[in-house]
């Protein structure tokens, strides 16, 4: 099955509209800056091709992560995208660029996408990357689309890398900092650390030594949410500053440098952002934070980024306003 068959209706709509915004499940709708008024376009959903023996899967960008995960689970595999909300579409997760909390072991989202197919502003179906697990043929369009927030085209189909589900998994807690070889995740709130182990049962048992079995820690909840990106070595200093911001809840990905923050007032995001800036990091607004800029800082290399945007979207029709370019 090729989900790009019958894409003409979508392509014509994109080509004739002045402004277009790709829409998935709206679970990441508030990431970055809100787009201006635009024609909403939905990508096709469904598993186009799944080769368990090759550890690759091709899906419509409109496929929910839950559906993808269920299909892969039947063959004992997974794509560790781990969106916060499982109803999120694969296209939405990729476009938002938000890596899951098992990034420490499984790598960033940008390393999971092998091929993209998208509709450009003229309604042309364009392919970037390739279907194999290793490929350097031509420029790396898949990585460019990860985190592009719908500003370069409408993703319609993606090929992703899969992996075998681990034989055993376990969350553990410690009141002192811990390090375990190839831990899937290490999360800290400044006093406690949670480690997720994955592997054979024997290895997980051996690595659990000295730690307390625990439930998976919940990511901070609140009407106003964001994520800080910072060099991992600066996390302890940043954590100390975040603790001084009244009402902010946070959980850091140790070794990665992502800090999930939430609060009940929009101003808390602003204060958390100031703390991040103080340590050379930045905060991406994920939800709420009305009136607060999505990025809080100019785009790095903004001149070059504007040229890249212009190369893919010369008419400036895709998700206008999402990125401050």
């Amino acid at each position: 099955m090729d989900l790009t068959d019958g894409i003409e209706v979508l392509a014509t709509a994109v080509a004739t509209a002045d402004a277009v915004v790709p829409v998935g499940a709206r679970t990441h709708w508030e990431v970055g800056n809100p787009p201006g008024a635009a024609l909403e376009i939905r990508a096709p959903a469904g598993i186009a091709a799944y080769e368990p023996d090759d550890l690759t899967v091709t899906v419509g960008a409109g496929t929910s992560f839950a559906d993808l995960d269920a299909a892969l689970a039947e063959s004992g595999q997974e794509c560790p995208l781990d969106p916060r909300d499982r109803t999120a579409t694969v296209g939405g997760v990729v476009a938002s660029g938000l890596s899951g909390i098992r990034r420490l072991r499984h790598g960033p989202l940008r390393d999971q996408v092998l091929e993209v197919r998208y509709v450009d502003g003229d309604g042309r179906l364009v392919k970037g990357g390739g279907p194999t697990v290793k490929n350097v043929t031509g420029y790396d369009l898949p990585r460019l689309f990860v985190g592009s927030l719908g500003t370069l085209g409408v993703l319609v189909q993606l090929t992703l890398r899969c992996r075998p589900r681990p034989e055993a998994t376990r969350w553990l807690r410690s009141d002192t900092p811990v390090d375990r070889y190839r831990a899937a995740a290490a999360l800290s709130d400044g006093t406690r650390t949670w480690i997720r182990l994955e592997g054979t049962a024997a290895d997980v048992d051996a690595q659990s030594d000295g730690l307390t079995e625990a439930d998976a820690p919940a990511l901070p909840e609140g009407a106003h949410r964001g994520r800080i990106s910072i060099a991992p070595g600066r996390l302890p200093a940043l954590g100390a500053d975040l603790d001084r911001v009244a009402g902010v809840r946070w959980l850091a990905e140790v070794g990665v440098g992502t800090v999930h923050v939430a609060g009940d007032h929009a101003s808390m995001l602003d204060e958390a952002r100031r703390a991040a800036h103080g340590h050379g990091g930045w905060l991406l607004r994920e939800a709420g934070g009305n009136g607060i800029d999505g990025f809080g800082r100019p785009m790095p290399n903004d001149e070059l980024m504007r040229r890249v945007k212009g190369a893919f979207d010369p008419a400036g029709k895709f998700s206008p306003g999402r990125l401050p370019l």
Partner: protein
Amino acid sequence: MSEGNAVAVCWPRSAADVAAAVRIARRHGRPFVARGSGTGLAGGATPLDDALVIVTTQMNRILDVDPQARVAWVEPGVLNLDLSRAVAHLGLHYAPDPSSQQACTIGGNVATNAGGPHCLASGVTSAHVLAVDVVLADGTDSCLGGLGPDEPGYDLRGCFVGSEGTMGIATRVAVRLTPNPPAVATMLCAFDSIDAAAAAVTGTIAGGVLPAALEMMDARITAAVEDFVGAGYPRDAEAVLLVEVDGLAGGVAAQVDAVREIANGHGAVSVRVAADDAERALLWKGRKSAFGAIARIAPDYYLHDAVVPRTRLVEVLRGVYDIADAHRLVTMNVFHAGDGNLHPLIVFDRREPGVWDRVYAAGNEILTMCIAAGGVLTGEHGVGVEKRDLMPLLFSADDLDAQARLRDAFDPDGAANPLKVLPRGSRCGELQRVPEGAWI
């Protein structure tokens, strides 16, 4: 197999020198080409159009190593293996390990998005580059990417890695260092047919085993290697698999058992686990000496780099031998089987009249077959000039137009490594030319 013409060659010692060289080239209306050690296999660093060649080998300092963050800042001329050696005492290494790692530079690795045997589990260069300081085609500096996990906006770092010098020149690279695994096992599985060895590769991946490395060598290669370095490969096997698994002790033991069972299930003649580090090192020395060993067999070889789905390895590999036979050529195969990355070598003597036409025709047939099987043109060597005109086999005119526009965004005047990667006619409205001997 391609030769170029340079207007001049320079050896900058700093990023400022690189920027000055670029500006001088531009002022004189010349393109420029970055070059590392010149180990590239696709002609990516071959100067065309009388370019200024900017060689980065003098910029070879490891600037900073942060063992806690597991990050090193290096200059582009640092040799790949020198970096791993320099951090070995910290229990760390730099994971991408091209066969040329004793000679190739990190800058060249970034340009080609280089791979290597151990990229099966750990990913190719792009997965290990956090940030790159670059001199763009207009002579200005930028830092692409960063030490934090994400940067706002587009992943320009991801665009730059693998752009083969067409988007600028790397002057400083932040790479991720990888902790050495607590346990490693290296196995040599011998088979009495190439089909059986290839089927065992497919069976390994399908069986949910993802080794750290999974390499295949046919009998012609192992014979050459044995004569050359004496790696201890069996001389009576038609093909061998070199399999390495690493990680925690339990996982390593489980993977050794799984690989052994799968290999035996596919009729392995023998399965041997290296007893110690010395035996491990020798097995790897054989693999990494393969290309040097071939020089003992024929004066010239032509090497391809296609990737196919792992489920198609048996038929594609059979096709490689059949195509070579049909053209009265000898092919030898040593390749990254675990990720489906074929390296069919066609050995020949260029003094033989007409042989080059046959080598070229056979190569094109092999690539066509790989793409028909759902594959791609290159897995780790790059497009360069060698595979440039074959790009339309994989990409439509619209696909190539998008790539050409991306390149223009970085380098509107086409001064950085011109005539590489994209065929003439990639931009919409340019004349489309089908490469000679190709079919669409």
